């Protein structure tokens, strides 16, 4: 027991280290999300429940599910003793040093849940034999990849959001499923959905997996489903948990007849296909192709420049876009594409009982598919795939290769989030630090099985470095800066989109390949 306790001291060191490291950026740049959360503190503290989702005196209305609003209310109780002025509704854009300190520390403190979840994930690692050297242990590598994740650090602690807390729920729920404690996992995920609804993206994986692997207890010899083994009590337990969490969260609003108002706040479909900066997804490729075709068409005199819709897409901050050549994409089409993209994965885990790892793989595919084809995707959503993939990356060589491609491209696509010159050094150094670590640590972990990356992937990543240098350093000095100010964003999105799509396809291949092997057996 003593040995067990001692062997985790490195985890404490990593966790304390990263928590203090986060505190260093208290005075760094913060985005408008800081004001968003301050405003929510004010709303939940000073208004009755019935007004929460109606209040619109600030443009940053409450658009997270009710449990998150309750979290803000809890934080507001502490904020009252800190600097009560931040809780005034009319005190827009208030950012006194005490407010900054409070909000930053609240992110660092709520991250404790993430730290706990990371620890639980590290315990789920399957290893043949743990190496003596701590640095080479898979659990150590996983802890670093999760706790020191570049994306999470800059999005939460510089840009300002509470993703660490939310991903804590997700990872804890995944860890519970890997430990086969499915009811707890389901409860955590239900709570998570009521904290932030973006996690609906991965809900299909949860639904199918729990139904198939938890509610049916037995299989036929070939691994397919045995219908007679259906366990209604288990389904009832699951349903009870999920429904009661939702009832707790949405019940009061249903009772007040505000459900439609809440839902309209949560799903604002008036926003455009792409977010302010393009997330590197399929629509970035689509829009990039459209742009290229338009330019080509004008060059070849097939199109009249005056007839083209104004190139709003490159304007950065737009809500609606019009494609010039290719047909415009309605929301329904994105939904259809997403469903089509995740369907094979869901079918695969339904048809044969698969281990808990396959569930994690399916979850990742859901996350990536909705990232690639979803409507109005934020570039931050890539973390939904990068973080859980870390768990697989320390266990198998092939996943490690996918992780390296995905995390590098995904993290690089977060660069435009921090555009102030003072934060330039931070993002570059932090990215380098994380990337160097993930390459050497994962390479070291799987060194007996050869190199992690294929030559083509190496070439792609070197190209990414070139694009990065060109966009961040050369472009600002070049004469195109005035004429085409958004060219670097476009180039970054399109180039990164290739990498993300590639990772998606390779991850799909790993899931389906395990299927094939099973058939041959």
């Amino acid at each position: 027991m003593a040995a067990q306790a001692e062997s985790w001291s490195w985890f404490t060191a990593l966790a304390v280290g990263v928590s203090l490291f986060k505190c260093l950026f208290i005075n760094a740049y913060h985005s408008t999300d800081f004001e968003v959360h301050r405003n929510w503190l004010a709303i939940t503290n000073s208004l009755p429940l019935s007004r929460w989702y109606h209040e619109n005196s600030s443009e940053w209305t409450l658009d997270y599910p009710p449990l998150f609003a309750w979290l803000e209310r809890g934080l507001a109780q502490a904020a009252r003793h800190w600097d009560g002025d931040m809780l005034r509704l009319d005190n827009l854009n208030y950012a006194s040093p005490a407010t900054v300190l409070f909000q930053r520390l609240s992110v660092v403190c709520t991250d404790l849940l993430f730290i706990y979840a990371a620890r639980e994930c590290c315990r789920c690692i399957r290893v043949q034999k743990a190496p003596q050297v701590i640095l080479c242990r898979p659990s150590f590598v996983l802890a670093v990849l999760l706790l020191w994740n570049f994306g999470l650090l800059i999005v939460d602690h510089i840009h300002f959001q509470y993703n660490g807390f939310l991903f804590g729920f997700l990872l804890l729920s995944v860890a519970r499923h890997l430990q086969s404690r499915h009811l707890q996992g389901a409860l955590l995920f239900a709570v998570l959905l009521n904290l932030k609804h973006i996690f609906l993206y991965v809900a299909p994986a949860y639904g199918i997996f729990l139904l198939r692997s938890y509610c049916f207890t037995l299989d036929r010899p070939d691994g397919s489903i045995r219908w007679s083994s259906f366990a209604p009590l288990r389904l009832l337990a699951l349903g009870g948990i999920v429904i009661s969490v939702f009832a707790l969260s949405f019940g009061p609003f249903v009772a007040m007849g505000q459900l439609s108002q809440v839902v309209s706040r949560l799903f604002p479909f008036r926003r455009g296909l792409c977010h302010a900066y393009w997330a590197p997804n399929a629509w970035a490729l689509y829009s990039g192709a459209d742009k290229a075709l338009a330019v080509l068409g004008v060059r070849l005199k097939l199109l009249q420049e005056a007839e083209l819709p104004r190139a709003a897409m490159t304007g950065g901050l737009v809500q609606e876009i019009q494609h010039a050549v290719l047909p415009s994409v309605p929301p329904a089409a994105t939904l259809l594409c997403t469903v089509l993209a995740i369907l094979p994965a869901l079918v695969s885990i339904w048809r044969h009982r698969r281990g808990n790892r396959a569930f994690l793989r399916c979850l990742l595919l859901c996350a990536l598919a909705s990232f690639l084809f979803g409507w109005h995707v934020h570039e931050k959503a890539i973390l939904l795939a990068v973080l859980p993939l870390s768990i697989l990356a320390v266990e198998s060589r092939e996943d490690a290769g996918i992780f390296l491609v995905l995390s590098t491209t995904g993290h690089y696509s977060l660069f435009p989030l921090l555009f102030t010159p003072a934060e330039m050094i931070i993002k570059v150094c932090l990215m380098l630090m994380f990337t160097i670590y993930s390459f050497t640590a994962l390479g070291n972990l799987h060194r007996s099985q050869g190199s992690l990356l294929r030559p083509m992937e190496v070439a792609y990543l070197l190209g990414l470095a070139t694009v990065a240098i060109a966009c961040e350093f050369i472009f600002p000095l070049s004469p195109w800066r005035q004429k085409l100010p958004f060219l670097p964003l476009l180039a970054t999105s399109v180039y990164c989109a290739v990498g993300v799509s590639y990772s998606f396809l390779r991850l799909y291949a790993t899931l389906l390949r395990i299927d094939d092997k099973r058939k041959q057996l």
Partner: protein
Amino acid sequence: MKLFLSLVSKTKPPFLSLRVMQTWSLVSISVLLAVLVRWGVSLNSYSGAGKPPMFGDYEAQRHWQEVTYNLPVQQWYFNTSDNDLNYWGLDYPPLTAYHSWLCAYVANILNPDWVELHRSRGYESPAHKLFMRTTVLVTDVLIYIPAVVLYCLYLTDGSAKRRVSILLSMLLYPGLILIDYGHFQYNGVSLGFALWGVLALGLGWNSLGSLAFSLALNYKQMELYHALPFFCYLLGKCIKAGLIGRGFVLLVKITATVLVTFGLCWLPFLPDPSQVLQVVRRIFPVARGLFEDKVANTWCSLNALIKIRSILTSDSQLYLSLAFTLLAALPSSIRLLMKPTFWNFKLALVNSSLAFFLFSYQVHEKSILLAALPVCLLLNEFPLMCVWFLQASTFSMLPLFLKDGLLVPYTVTFLGFPFLTVYLLSALEDCSEDELKLGTSGKLFPWIPKIYLACIMKWKFYISMALMAVLSVLSVVMDPPPHLPDLFPVLVSTTAFMHFLGVFLHFSIVQFMEPPRKKSRKKNN
């Protein structure tokens, strides 16, 4: 040269065998982390931010840029209508002035308002702050950090992991980071040059070492704290090689290097003796008194009991401090002269710089950084003592940090550094072995069994950490009673003084003990 080759051949095998790739990545991660922490601290306030009319060290550095860029060299150190020496007049040696000129040259390209004569006085803007912070980072990345990396890789014993741990601990020493990136100074330059000197001497490149140290001296006169050990070590080496034969050649080479370096640095001032005199007068301001503010040295701590400054004339204060300084610094230097080993050299650097800090004239609280650098070099051999000292040195500058509005970075680094180093260097587990190296413990306190001694050390460490933490919290939270307005600064400086005195005594005892046998064989080769 032969010495260097033998050293390299000795250091290379363990360095290569432990998977170079891994070490390379760990080193680069440590360096990147160090840069990130530095930059994180630099996002905070600086000394004298928004405090006219005098502002602080940040404005001093900016003002030097303004002066050096706009005035001819001959006027830099003189009071003229364009150069008011009472407003942050240049009082550092010429290399600092050249550095200011270089920064000003870049500043003028970026935005001429930053260095415009007279009109730029007190200039502050976010862009200018970014520029100033960047200049500090650039010098650090070019001078200080490479020296630390090379020192840890080539002159530290132990496994690759151990070396990287030492490297990270040394790079993350909070005192230097908070002063350079928070308060705003360029200590990384002078300390970096001094460290390059140590590094070169450790590798056997005597001329290069004296060149680097001369540069350090010409950047900041406070480097004189280290001068005695450098001098004694090199002289001792020459004597050992035989003053009639090879030693003489070595002596001539070293002397020539030092003279040429100094000559080049002072070249613009040499033609006119009055210029040289004026620079020297500016560099050594004797008229400023025995001490200013609250500094954790002997005189200021004694001041609580005896008001020395009102009893003695300023001349006798000067002689008193000179006598005590020499008395404290000479033994270790003479010992070094007799036995010029690298091990003795490092210890003498600690002892000499601490002696100067504790007893010399007109000491600033920031001068403790000069003692902190050589203490960092001993992190591998005495982890507990060094971490303890480094923590106390950061703590001793607390009143300064509070004045500059650096509470948040101070708290973070003050908590993080002991935690990290105690974990990385397993300082608390080694403290019994630490005592073995001290060796005298048995002789001084024969009635205490060794195991108890380790335990006592550990508890003393915990209690002192707790005391420092409590005093930090009190300084921040409590208002001092009206009749004792300086209560907390005095408490802080006295506490820190006790630590410094203890460390000084400890390392003096260590130096006069026979070095551990393993060490002596290695370093004497």
